[in-house]
């Protein structure tokens, strides 16, 4: 074969592969994956302009304090979803953990924490085992543990909320501050940093993404697929456990009936954060932005009702939330399509 032919073929290949990422593609990709941050900022500006005291320290800090529970759950969910799985059990697991930690709260914050996280780990363990060993689909397994955790929470709690001990220091965990910031918010920040590092700079995180991208390939590449999947559910359970401890300590009670629908909130936040539900791609920061964005909607609706112009019933609120989600996912679908078409 002639020399020029070789050169030409080389050129052809080169033309095919480069230039790698056009500026436009990068912009679209950024918008799709981090656009939620932009939306969050826009919504904050809107709120600040329209409502008094909206950006006041009180509102901001309580918002952070409250939404950390969802943030933790969403981080766990994000990892699960990035492997291509799903965890429906997070909400009722948090409820179960809140009950257990409330029961242990007289023994202080550490035992309460250990108990709550332990309960989360047990549910995570069951999920992980059933999914990796019995090979049952995550949707079904976690649907079952969703039911079971709720039942167990009610059984342990004797069908009612369980008081926490108010003088063992347990409530500091959810109600206290550290350097002027709510302790839960610190925990949320920690989860964000640790989660981001784990996702981007550890073999575990990379394997998570590989599994979500193509599980069979990951297995044949020699990646520890089962172990990582197992660990992801364990992690999700543990984070739900921490959320449960915060629930108990922030509101002063173990609540067996809480957590209903949290899983869907978390899934929505993960999706709003730009993570593909089919796995293989995602960001922890964007997921947490998604949580704040959805949390902010509730907050803004409450402020809107305070303006006294209109009083939105709860019914309208769910319609508005649904429509908001609709707009976000459609925008994202559009961006994804544009990115793909490039």
């Amino acid at each position, binding site marked *: 074969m002639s020399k020029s032919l070789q050169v030409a073929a080389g050129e052809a290949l080169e033309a095919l592969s480069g230039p790698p990422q056009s500026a436009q593609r990068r912009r679209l990709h950024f918008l799709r994956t981090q656009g939620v941050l932009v939306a969050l900022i826009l919504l904050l500006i809107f709120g600040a302009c329209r409502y008094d005291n909206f950006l006041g320290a009180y509102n901001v800090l309580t918002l952070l304090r409250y939404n950390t529970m969802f943030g933790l759950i969403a981080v766990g969910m994000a990892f699960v979803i990035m492997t291509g799985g*799903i965890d429906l059990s997070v909400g009722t697991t948090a409820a179960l953990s809140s009950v257990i930690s409330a029961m242990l709260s007289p023994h202080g914050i550490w035992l309460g924490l250990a108990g709550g996280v332990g309960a989360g780990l047990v549910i995570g363990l069951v999920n992980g085992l*059933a999914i990796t060993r*019995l*090979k*049952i*689909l995550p*949707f*079904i*397994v976690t*649907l*079952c*543990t*969703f*039911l*079971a955790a*709720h*039942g*167990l929470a*009610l*059984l342990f709690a004797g*069908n009612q909320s369980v008081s926490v001990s108010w003088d063992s220091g347990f409530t500091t965990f959810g109600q206290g501050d550290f350097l002027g910031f709510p302790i839960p918010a610190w925990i949320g920040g920690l989860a964000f940093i640790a989660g981001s590092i784990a996702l981007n700079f550890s073999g575990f995180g990379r394997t998570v993404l590989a599994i979500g991208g193509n599980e069979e390939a990951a297995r044949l590449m020699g990646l520890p697929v089962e172990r990582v999947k197992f660990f992801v559910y364990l992690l999700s359970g543990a984070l739900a456990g921490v959320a449960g401890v915060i629930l108990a300590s922030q509101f002063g009670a173990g609540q067996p009936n809480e957590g209903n629908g949290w899983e*869907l909130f978390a*899934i*929505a936040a993960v*999706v709003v954060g730009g993570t593909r*539900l*089919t796995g293989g791609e995602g960001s922890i920061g964007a997921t947490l932005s998604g949580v704040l964005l959805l949390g902010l909607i509730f907050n803004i609706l409450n402020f809107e009702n305070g303006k006294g112009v209109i009083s939105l*019933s*709860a*019914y*309208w*609120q*769910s*319609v508005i*939330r*649904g*429509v908001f*989600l*609709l707009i976000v*996912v*459609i925008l994202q*679908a*559009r961006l*994804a*399509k544009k990115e793909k078409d490039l």
Partner: protein
Amino acid sequence: MTALALRLGQSRRLIPSGALLGLALLLVFNLAFTQNFLSLQTFNINLTQVSTIVIVAVGMTMVIATGGIDLSVGSLMAISGALAPLIFGAHSGLFAVPVLGMACALVLPVLAASAGGVLNGVLVTRFRIQPIVATLILFIAGRGIAQVFTNGNLQTFSNDTFHWLGLGKVLGIPAQVIIMLIIVAIAAWVMRATLFGRYILATGGNERAARLAGVPVARVKMAAYVICGALSGLAGLLVIAINSSADANLIGMGIELDAIAAVAVGGTLLTGGRARILGTLIGALIIQLVRYTLLAHGVPDAAALVVKAAIILAAVYLQKRE
């Protein structure tokens, strides 16, 4: 060769034997330990209670077979259930004409729920949004819409047509049970014998390949969501008919999970590409019978949840091993 024939025969069976076995065990247990279990009454009550779940689950089976899922079924039931009394209760315009009004009260709500299915279908096929998220939208907003219609109020009514739908009997069999059986039979036949059935399975089995083989995948998926929506609408009508009241806040609450569980227990792959309508019926019956058994033996709700979870998991696990 005989082993092979046996294997093929099994894999083509319409009802997974594990599910049948589970149902049989439950029946035997109840015959032995539950008072008055063997009576027409008990039989009818269990079938009526399961009928709405089965009707919804049939639609869910089709959606799941295309590789999707529908979380919005409960909300669509609420929309349909909330609309019907508004229509037959209206005393103006067309709706005031007796027969026409009643026909509208039966048809329009189902159409409204189907419209919800259209929205789901559009989001899934045109915008390529993951089914779980696409239908989450109506899951959240749909019930809100129903509540806005009724301002959250409970609507009580007495209406002959709906009274019959809810409590009527034909040859001693409750009307809803007959409706349920007809729907199951039609759906099972559609999945087995018709082009549409094959197309659903092909779409769920490998969407890209199906499209290149000329399967109109978008239309097939759309049809599945619309059917699921319509069946949810019908189920919504049945629920209000039985109660002689419509409560947008509660109609169909949480039914998506029961329906999905029934589908899974019945041996339909949650990943798509397989559909067992009769399996879904059996799956729903198992879940219903578990509920009945626990209730009849006074097991508290909390414990019942745990038992129910264990049974679903076990049943699905047994399916897998077949």
